[in-house]
């Protein structure tokens, strides 16, 4: 993993100058800096195009959205476009709909990420420990839900629970609270349950894949040593495996939290925001796309972007998520 790396600049500088001749040392330094410069240049050549593309497809739209959010602008009345400063933000932040939608979004994020982390870890362990001959089949089977387009899976779940065409009510009518007359999409609690279940089913494979990569990094010697010392399975898991894959867990949680916070498809298909199930992406969509209010819609999008950035900052600064560590670079 990390042992076989090329000698770094630091180690080279630390080498004692053989013979102690100053001229020699100077030449070596200049050679080193030439090489550093060349490496830096190569780095730019390799990463430059991607950097430019990133600027064009992400930075430009973000800046455009920030700019548009300062205007009162309706697409069907382009002549009435007027600068309103932070007026759109005031409207959004003083509206209870924003806060209610933020609450629903946070609720969905917290529940799905927590459940998916536990389930995903279990699945990752199963995949990791599976007999070699079964491993391929098992991984494919677990990954199938993740391969399904979200809109398609949302429709599948919707029709399964729908009061007219669904089969869930008929199959599970022995469960207390479920009967043929239960309309899942008529109340907040039941609607959110289906949305969250579908979200968990769909994206647990993603989190388990990330955790599987983390599991693969845990040195087997440590596990074996712990077992030799008489540690139980639970102790090995708690004291050896989890601490050694902390970076992978944090990255998985961060990626999934960012994803869950931007949930759209499931809510859009199943309830379209009815019964208080609206999430922030849907609110932005309805203002910008359905109402064609570009200014208001942009303001919500910018605020949503701010929330996502905040989640990133909190995760990286507070929980010290180490993106490089998760990839085994250190």
């Amino acid at each position, binding site marked *: 993993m990390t042992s076989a790396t090329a000698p770094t600049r630091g180690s080279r500088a630390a080498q004692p100058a053989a013979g102690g001749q100053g001229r020699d040392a100077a030449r070596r330094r200049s050679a080193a800096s030439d090489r550093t410069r060349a490496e830096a240049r190569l780095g730019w050549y390799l990463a430059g195009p991607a950097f430019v593309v990133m600027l064009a497809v992400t930075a430009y739209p973000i800046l455009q959205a920030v700019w548009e959010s300062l205007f009162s602008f309706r697409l069907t009345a382009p002549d009435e476009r007027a600068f309103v400063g932070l007026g759109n933000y005031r*409207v959004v932040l003083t509206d209870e709909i924003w806060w209610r939608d933020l609450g629903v979004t946070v609720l969905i994020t917290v529940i799905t990420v927590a459940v998916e982390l536990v389930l995903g870890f279990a699945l990752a362990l199963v995949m990791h420990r599976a007999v070699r001959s079964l491993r391929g089949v098992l991984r494919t089977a677990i990954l199938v839900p993740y391969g399904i387009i979200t809109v398609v899976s949302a429709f599948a779940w919707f029709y399964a629970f729908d009061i007219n065409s669904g089969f869930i009510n008929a199959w599970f009518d022995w469960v207390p609270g479920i009967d043929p007359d239960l309309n899942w999409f*008529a109340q907040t609690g039941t609607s959110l349950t289906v949305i969250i279940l579908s979200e968990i089913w769909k994206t647990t494979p993603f989190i388990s894949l990330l955790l599987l990569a983390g599991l693969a990094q845990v040195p087997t010697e440590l596990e074996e040593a712990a077992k030799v010392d008489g540690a139980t399975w639970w102790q090995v898991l708690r004291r050896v495996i989890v601490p050694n894959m902390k970076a992978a867990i944090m990255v998985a949680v961060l990626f999934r939290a960012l994803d869950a916070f931007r949930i759209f498809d499931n809510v859009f298909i199943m309830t379209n925001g009815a019964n208080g199930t609206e999430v922030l992406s849907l609110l932005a969509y309805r203002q910008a796309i359905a109402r*064609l209010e570009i200014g208001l819609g942009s303001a919500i999008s910018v605020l949503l972007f701010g929330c996502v950035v905040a989640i990133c900052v909190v995760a990286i600064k507070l929980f010290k998520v180490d993106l490089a560590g998760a990839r085994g670079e250190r």
Partner: protein
Amino acid sequence: MSRRRRLAQGLAVALVSAGLVACQGEPGPPVLTWYTNPDAGGQDRIAQACTEAAGGEYVIETAGLPREASAQRDQLARRLAAQDSSIDLMSLDPPFIPEFANAGFLAPMPDDVAQRVGDGVVEGALAGATWSGELVTVPFWANTQLLWYRTSVAEEAGLDPAAGPVTWDQLVEAASATDTYLGVQGTRAESLTVWINALVESAGGHIVEDPSADAADVAITLDTDAGHEAARIMSEIGRQGLGGPGLPTADENATFSIFQGDRGSFMVNWPFVWPAMQSAVEAGQLDQGVLDDVGWALYPATVEGEDARPPYGGINLGVGAFSAHPDLAYAAAECIADPANQAEYFISDGNPPSSTQAYDDPAVQEAFPMADLIRQSLEQAAPRPQTPYYNEVSGGLQQTWHPPSGIDPERTPRQAAELITAVLKGEQLL
């Protein structure tokens, strides 16, 4: 290396020349693109027939729009705001016409065309195709809801809708006495607005008093006797569970399937249900007995003794303001909306004509025994508020009047009016 380069050069020359040929080509007639709402294929057939009838003057190609009316509007409005010249003809849902006309998305209609296409059109459809006193779209087909009922249930409840207008209160009583479900659309979608509007209009009120007003001046007149009466009826149906457990998510298709089931009784719905039931019987999915049990009457009245104002829907043809051939597009629209085509479309797709003449077609009379009733319903029909801000009005109603069981007859109409007014003033989100 050099051979590879030569190959690349050869390929490039071939590609460029192919492109040039393509550009020089197309000596044929101009192609008009018609954006159509999904149907059973009738609009494609009409496009083909009109292309043939044009004798090489133009070719009509169709392009499909999304299924939901609101999604159709979203797509067309976004494209037209970007001055999309590929939109020559579009199938437009009437409530969105004022918004499009007001924004300058529709090419002005020549006077002679207006004269011809406005002649012999049912009242509701003419009103729906008009914006500030001028015809801005070509009336194509016009929809209205009827009261469909199971004769057996009506008899059991001692009600005879065929004999004369029935009221919503009578339906509520009948459904509650026979322990059956009323077929009404309670889902949070456009169909809910359709229902609210019909109830308010039938009580002699209007949701919007001055539809042509500016956004900040649009007056929502729901906190009135008519608004309260509409809210009372909806909340009663919701609270007593008369729409069934599926009411909060019931759209036209859901109510249709309840109507055909064991607890079906009375349903308000568009005429598409008639050919749909007949083909279901032919396919063996529906009992002939159910079809024989079905009756139809005018939309229920809100107030006893006052005529109902049934919902009005349908599709009108708009010509895109940025089309390269608006004159040809209007010629094509006239061909498409020809009464003979409308009659054929009615029979094939179940969408009623806007032309009064088309109803006299013997084939129409045979396929739709209720054709005259549909025509009468269209003459009585009231359009939804014809304001450029219809989307906000409808969205505000859907947020406050859903679910039907949560409606408070005293407070909900006022809350809806306050929300819509604040949204239109830009003070609140929708």
